[in-house]
């Protein structure tokens, strides 16, 4: 009977349950998504040369577990607040609190298990989708990556089961301990925040010191290794929370006291809204900040690796080099949008390769420049035949050797005059160098032509890399695309978690906000003002974490520069930041529109 009653209770608040349910499903799905990488040791080993990588993932796991834990606690309190009134009523009607405790225990667990099941399914789908998409888009090699991964499944299921059992026990306890009257009257009591200066100041100081320690630990990652990550993890989580808890509360109180500000339009109402939910908000701001930093950090490093690949690829002077191309290969090569194309003749002897010097005077060739300090990629310079003398034989010799087929690339290069070249025995062979207008735009064609050339000249598949852009690309892509993949994959995962956190937080307040905004409408508030108030309130939830998150990332990138993993991590930082901020702003606008529609719709 009671069971039936409680089911009708669920039915009547179906929309709220949907919000709760989808929030939990997303949390489980994203946790699974992360674990498919984190628990997959063969993937990590195969895709990163960094010994630290497995630990980074372990700590990432822990961090995500903490975030998920807080998220679930929050979702659970939302569930409980929905049920308190109903259960209070049942108690009034004579139901025993023990029985009701059992009921809420079952209900929590049932919702948990159901969303866990759905979450794992969604998670596998999401992982497949994101994985495939990234591997295709990035031309990445993600060895041993699989969307359906047993250990990840086990970890996710166990973790969430434990969480839900804890949540169910907590709910049971709360229901047994709270007096009936409090249950009945539990429509959100306002939080009275007393700002005690001493406490605020000590929290600010402690928070900032924690953050500073975390930043230093990230900087010293080279010497501290695992310990550095562990320290940073704890201090940054704690520091972020403390800073928000003290500064945000303080700021609200200040603004409230600033009557000129507070008494304008709906400002006081917005402040009251923020104040009313301050405990939720403080937790939420810290959570969103961490997710923001993780997502932005992951995407920034992903792009950093992508940039590295680009940088090395583009440092090579030629896109394709053809050796004695047949008519069909020449035909294929015309498909490339060519910027410059040169043809050179050469003859191959037993230990020597002959070029006529004249042709380099007519068509200069790219030769390496001497290597300077602080240089990360090889620099080339167009060089004429007459400049290829004894002063720096190594450089032009090597540069020309790299243009030849692997089987000829160990031989000495000799530059001779036209007449000598004609008399030299051996077949005249043609070397065609091609500079395309845009390597990455033409990658598929370039790849095809290069492969045709290699097949035609019977080059072994595991050949020594030459000096074309394609060779450089192959090498760097093989080396770094695993990292790149991880960066983007995790970036997407954290971004999704961030989005679902914010969405859940916001939707869970919609029902009670509806009545408030409705009332403001009734006493004659202009629509624009109502919309503005919503935009402001949600804006705080987006803006503050954004600012602090960016600071976290700026310091966090130290981990990559000091270890040399991404020496130029800070170069061109605006691009990933801009992309991320655009995405984030779009999501903000979407959320605001959605919320305005839910809350203001008549």
């Amino acid at each position, binding site marked *: 009977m009671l069971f039936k009653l409680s089911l009708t209770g669920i039915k009547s608040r179906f929309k709220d349950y949907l919000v709760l349910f989808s929030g939990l499903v997303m949390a489980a799905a994203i946790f699974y998504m992360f674990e498919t990488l984190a628990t997959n040791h063969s993937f990590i080993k195969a895709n990163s040369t960094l010994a630290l990588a497995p630990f980074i993932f372990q700590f990432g796991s822990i961090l995500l577990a903490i975030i998920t834990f807080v998220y679930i606690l929050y979702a659970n309190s939302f569930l409980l607040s929905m049920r308190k009134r109903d259960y209070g009523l049942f108690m009034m009607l004579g139901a025993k609190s023990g029985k009701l405790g059992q009921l809420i225990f079952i209900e929590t667990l049932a919702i948990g298990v159901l969303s866990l099941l759905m979450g794992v399914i969604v998670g596998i789908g999401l992982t497949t989708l994101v994985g495939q998409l990234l591997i295709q888009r990035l031309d990445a090699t993600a060895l041993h990556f699989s969307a359906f991964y047993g250990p990840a499944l086990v970890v996710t299921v166990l973790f969430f089961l434990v969480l839900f059992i804890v949540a169910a026990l907590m709910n049971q306890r709360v229901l047994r301990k709270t007096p009936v009257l409090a249950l009945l009257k539990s429509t959100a*009591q306002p939080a009275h925040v007393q700002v005690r200066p001493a406490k605020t100041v000590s929290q600010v100081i402690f928070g900032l010191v924690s953050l500073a320690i975390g930043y230093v630990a990230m900087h010293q990652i080279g010497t501290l290794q695992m310990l550095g990550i562990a320290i940073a993890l704890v201090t940054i989580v704690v520091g972020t929370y403390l800073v928000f808890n003290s500064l945000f509360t303080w700021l609200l109180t200040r603004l409230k006291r600033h009557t000129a500000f507070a008494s*304008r*339009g709906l400002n006081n109402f917005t402040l*009251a809204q923020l104040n009313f939910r301050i405990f939720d908000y403080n937790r939420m701001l810290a959570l969103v900040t961490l997710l923001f930093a993780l997502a932005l950090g992951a995407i920034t490093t992903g792009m950093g690796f992508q940039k590295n690949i680009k940088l090395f690829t583009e440092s090579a002077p030629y896109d394709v080099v053809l050796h004695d191309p047949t008519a069909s290969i020449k035909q294929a090569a015309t498909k490339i949008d060519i910027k410059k194309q040169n043809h050179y003749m050469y003859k191959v002897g037993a230990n020597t390769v002959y070029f006529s010097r004249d042709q380099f005077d007519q068509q200069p060739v790219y030769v390496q420049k001497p290597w300077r300090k602080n240089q990360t990629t090889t620099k080339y310079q167009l060089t004429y035949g007459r400049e290829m003398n004894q002063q720096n034989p190594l450089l032009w010799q090597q540069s020309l050797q790299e243009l030849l087929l692997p089987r000829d690339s160990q031989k000495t290069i000799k530059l001779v005059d036209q007449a000598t070249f004609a008399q030299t025995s051996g077949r005249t062979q043609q070397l065609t160098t091609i500079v395309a207008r845009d390597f990455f735009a033409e990658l598929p064609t370039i790849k095809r032509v290069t492969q045709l050339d290699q097949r035609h000249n019977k080059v072994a598949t595991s050949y020594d890399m030459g000096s074309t852009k394609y060779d450089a690309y192959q090498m760097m892509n093989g080396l770094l695309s695993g990292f790149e993949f991880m960066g983007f994959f995790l970036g997407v995962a954290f971004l999704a978690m961030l989005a679902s956190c914010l969405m859940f937080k916001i939707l869970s307040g919609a029902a009670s906000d509806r009545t408030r905004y409705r*009332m403001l409408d009734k*006493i*004659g*508030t202009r629509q*624009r003002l109502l919309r503005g108030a919503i935009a402001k309130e949600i804006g705080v939830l987006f803006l503050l974490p954004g600012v602090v998150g960016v600071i976290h990332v700026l310091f966090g990138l130290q981990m990559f520069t000091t270890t040399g993993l991404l020496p130029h991590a800070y170069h061109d930082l605006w691009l990933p930041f801009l992309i991320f901020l655009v995405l984030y702003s779009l999501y903000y606008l979407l959320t605001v529109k959605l919320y305005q529609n839910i809350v203001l719709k008549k």
Partner: protein
Amino acid sequence: MIAKAPIVAVDAVRKVYGQANEQQYEALHDVSFQVQAGEFVGIMGASGSGKTTLLNILSTLDQPTSGSVKINQQEITQLRGNQLADFRAKEIGFIFQDFNLLENMTAYENIALPLSLQNVSAKKARPLIEKIAVTLGIDKILNKYPTEISGGQKQRVAAARALVHEPSILMGDEPTGALDSKSAKSLLDTMTTLNQQQQVSILLVTHDPFSASYCQRILFIKDGQIGQELKRGDRSKAAFYQDILGVLGRTEQ
């Protein structure tokens, strides 16, 4: 001497619920009446007779299917968007049965809302709020939140919020409906005082004869039509109460 224009003029108002293709229900048929400035008028009827429908139209929360409503000589049925919001904010004070206070703001902040909507500075707002709070006897609880005060006090706060910006008319939809009899009586007394000493025009909707007996004039509404009108004149409240009961007795048969 020309008669002063009425503060509320309702002319041939009809309200039909439901779209043309659905089942329709006519909640108001051809309602017409007027309220003069400074009057205390009651609209009385059984549950389902159309009182809330009528009051929602008068307070611009809803629109009539046809007919005209003028408040302070302004036609309100054509108002839309910002004009509508501004009209509500300036001209109308509304007390709801279920208080409709914002539970996340203190009583003071709740009362201040209509003023800050009109961008009255905090400095100018304070004396206005304090004055109305004294009038309504809630000056001691201004810093409390709605969850910390009684139902009667909540309704007084709601009344203060409805009056603080000095609207043309105060409307109440069964404002005493959720109050105990003592709080109800005290609120009605206050409304009478406001009406008599500060010439606040009041339109009160109720199904309760006791509340109605505080009015100077009562319009009886039945099945969406205004039937009888009853004036108090010089009679005492108790005598008027008996008259009301009499009318109710006759119409019920």
